[in-house]
């Protein structure tokens, strides 16, 4: 137990958060974000780390960055400013097809499930 405490004290907050997220999402039967293939239907999950409204060509676009401790994925909802439940810190499962946008993993208009 003492060793556990010492390990915790020597680990950075970011690493602790990654470990916590990995524990939380490992038990669900979903793909870790880092292993999720591009351009194939995937189911990934994580906590919402960032929510932003980014206008594209004058159209509101909701962008949500989700992380599970292995990596992050950006869900883009076109034409939306707000989606009830998709708030900072919320755990979600996303289903869709990821593609690469300038090095970012992006899923366009994914199906989402809110986790309690």
């Amino acid at each position, binding site marked *: 137990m003492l060793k556990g405490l010492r390990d915790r004290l020597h680990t950075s907050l970011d690493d602790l958060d990654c470990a916590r997220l990995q524990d939380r999402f490992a038990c669900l039967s979903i793909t870790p974000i880092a292993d999720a293939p*591009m351009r194939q239907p995937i189911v990934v999950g994580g906590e919402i780390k960032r929510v932003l409204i980014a206008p594209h060509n004058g159209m509101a676009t909701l962008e949500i960055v989700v992380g599970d401790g292995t990596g992050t994925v950006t869900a883009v909802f*076109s034409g939306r400013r707000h989606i009830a439940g998709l708030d900072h810190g919320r755990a979600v499962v996303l289903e869709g*097809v990821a*593609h*690469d946008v300038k090095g970012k993993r992006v899923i366009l208009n994914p199906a989402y499930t809110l986790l309690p």
Partner: protein
Amino acid sequence: MRVVIAGGGSVGKFIAEQLHEGGHEVLIVDNDHATVARALKNNEPKGVAWFEADACEIAALADANLDKADVVAAVTGDDEDNLVISLLAKQEFGVPRVVARVNNPKNEWMFNETWGVDVSVSTPHLITGLVQEAVTEGSFVRLLNFEGGKAQLAEVTLADTSPANGQEIGELGFPRDANIVAVVRGDRVIMPRPDTILRVHDEVIVLVTAEAGDDVRRLLIG
């Protein structure tokens, strides 16, 4: 590259032929039985594969192996179809580059990344640009848009009243977000250098971002 073309009309067939000659693997998807049958019978365009299906259906696009396509070109004669095909290609298959044809210029505003379109081509807009270029002096003519309109290639023919006449390019004080990329004088294309002197009736081709547009207009048109 693997290219899938939706729409096997004259536009689709022409693009397919050109791309095939360029060494690309091309598949045309069209839902008209007669069109596909005729094309297969006459083997035209040569070396291009055909697939009879409705490109607005996800299942049909999956059968056309869109998940392995590098480029999708939605070039049917129907703007609604082109938008649906573009959105499905981007959203369901993550196609890296989606090109769409605009038939009715009124619909051009919709052909952007919201609908999964990376590049749109509107023939009426192109023709307007080319006609303007031929007849207008002293105005800013858009030739091409990049990055959804953030940058554009434009052309200005210098009128008698242009403040740039007789000036060296280096002394114009061009904004950092714009560049003169070529000067056409009569039949000659001049590569612009800081000491190139602009003259009246020169066609000046500029690459300019949206923010710098007004400054460039002021410098070249007055």
